[in-house]
């Protein structure tokens, strides 16, 4: 089981801030593919990966990073702090 979190417009498009999933995906990219296949709202959120960022257990990561041992995955647009 893995916690998947969504922020900003990713959260708005998917319609929920977090969910707990069973997945066999071995990389972030494979998890994204599973999510996109679920429903139109996921497809809309993940349509353009270049406009998305991912964090694994609260550290920024790449989409080809492995998911082994990861407990929390977060998807969000590029940050706009400061």
């Amino acid at each position, binding site marked *: 089981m893995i916690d998947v979190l969504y922020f900003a417009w990713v959260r708005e498009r998917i319609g929920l801030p977090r969910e707990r999933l069973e997945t066999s995906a071995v990389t972030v990219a494979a998890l994204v593919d599973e999510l996109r296949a679920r429903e139109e709202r996921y497809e809309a959120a993940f349509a353009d990966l270049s406009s998305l960022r991912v964090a694994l257990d609260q550290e920024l990561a790449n989409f080809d990073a492995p998911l082994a041992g990861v407990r*929390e995955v977060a998807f969000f647009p590029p*940050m*706009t702090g400061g």
Partner: protein
Amino acid sequence: MRVSVQTDPFDLGAESNAFAAAQTTAGAVVTFTGLVRDNGGTLAAMEIEHYPGMTERAIRAIMDQAVGRWSLEDALVIHRHGRLTAQEPIMMVATAARHRADAFAAAEFLMDYLKSRAPFWKKEIGTDGAEWVAAKAEDEAALTRW
């Protein structure tokens, strides 16, 4: 080195005075304050979302990098989230160093990284709709100089 991620307003003056007064070896203190900018009077509010578990550790990692690169006596980051109105302070950074070049460079570095690497997202609530602020290419490009 203090990090505060908070919804409450902060008092720039009180924070600046407390930060400067705590220094015993610094000759230079730099502060940066970000204000909510109202482009043309159409902003009703700004909403700032963040990633509670990650935000403080991301900011501390950026501070650690700054401490490793410059000779700093102290540093401070305060960043608000939630709902803000025009001209309210969003966040501040303060740095203290023996010499001004270190204090300036570290403050600019902290700002460049906070902009693009700390998990905050701004949404502008306008009088005619709401829109997520898009990250600027120039903000990402600013990181390459460090």
